[in-house]
């Protein structure tokens, strides 16, 4: 192999450097204790005995993402939205293109792969939805479910063809509508507690989940005996649709064949 000497020296460098740092006690070593801030988060994430500060979600990460640090996540969603908008803007100027007139069976991969992909796509969507809906109880949430679900259209695009998706109505415009609905859902959930507070003539905050010391408004944590953790469940569903639709738009735009660009007057190479 060409690189073998470099690889061996690299590995030896890492091993000896780690040994040196360990002997000198210079590297960062995690301790047996976590920081005090983390203790506060862990103590209050699901704590029915401390109603004033809890987020009522057994999942610490989702509680931080959508409750303690909710405003950060809303702005991060905005960054994500702008990056997708930038991609769509860059992909403009593509002319009309038609399906190749050759046989339908020539498109995509072999029959075995197509059949397995049909089964797999269903299970991918099922896994993604379960990840998103249980995001406040088990590991998962809107981002995880959305990123998982975005692989299903990509598999279809590659194993079948993009015409398979387009003929079944999954187009860029439909995905834009779903995406806007998801973003609107995030916005509505964020100001829900505030509107309830206005209606009940009480103080309430934007992005509030459970009751806080200064405001007694709280979104119900249990519906029909099932724990939904207030706003977290709605945030997860909305984020699931926004992320999934956003990635699907970009992937549909990305696999447009090159002759579409050439037919719209692009430079010939």
């Amino acid at each position, binding site marked *: 192999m060409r*690189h073998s000497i470099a690889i061996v020296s690299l590995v030896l460098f890492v091993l000896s450097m780690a040994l040196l740092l360990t002997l000198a006690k210079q590297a960062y070593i995690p301790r047996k204790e976590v920081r005090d801030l983390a203790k506060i988060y862990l103590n209050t994430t699901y704590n029915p005995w401390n109603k004033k500060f809890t987020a009522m979600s057994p999942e610490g*990460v989702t509680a931080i993402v959508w409750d303690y640090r909710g405003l950060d996540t809303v702005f991060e969603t905005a960054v994500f939205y702008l990056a997708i908008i930038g991609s769509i803007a860059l992909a403009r100027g593509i002319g009309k293109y038609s399906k190749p007139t050759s046989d339908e069976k020539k498109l995509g991969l072999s029959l075995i792969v197509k059949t397995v992909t049909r089964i797999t796509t269903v299970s991918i969507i099922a896994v993604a939805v379960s990840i998103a809906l249980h995001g406040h109880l088990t590991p998962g949430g809107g981002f995880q479910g959305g990123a998982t679900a975005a692989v299903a259209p990509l598999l279809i695009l590659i194993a079948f063809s993009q015409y398979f998706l387009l003929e079944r109505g999954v187009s860029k415009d439909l995905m834009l509508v779903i995406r806007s609905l998801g973003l609107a859902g995030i916005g509505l959930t964020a100001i829900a507690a505030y509107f309830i507070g206005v209606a009940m003539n009480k103080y309430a905050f934007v992005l509030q989940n459970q009751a806080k010391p200064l405001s007694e408004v709280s979104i119900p944590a249990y519906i029909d005996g099932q724990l939904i953790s207030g706003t977290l469940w709605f945030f997860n569903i909305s984020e699931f649709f926004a992320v999934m639709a956003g990635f699907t738009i970009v*992937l549909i735009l*990305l696999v447009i064949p090159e002759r579409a660009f050439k037919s719209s007057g692009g430079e010939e190479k």
Partner: protein
Amino acid sequence: MIDPQIIVLGMAALAALVSVIATYLAILEKNLVRAVVFSAIQSTLYAFLYYVLMAPDIVLVYIPVAVGLYPAVVLILISKTEKEEKV
């Protein structure tokens, strides 16, 4: 009896060490498709590392992104443009 923590963290250290090799080959490889494959190896090892470091949320979001979407997107880009890097 050997301490189980040593074995578990030893696996993580092994994964990190192999990921260095995979990264090196991904950066230095001239054939871009092979670079993507090396990058996929590195992603799988990182996912294992996150699992051992007790971050199941990160594993769930990292595997679809780094194994499912990155290679596909970069491979589509390569198939539309150039497949060799000329140094």
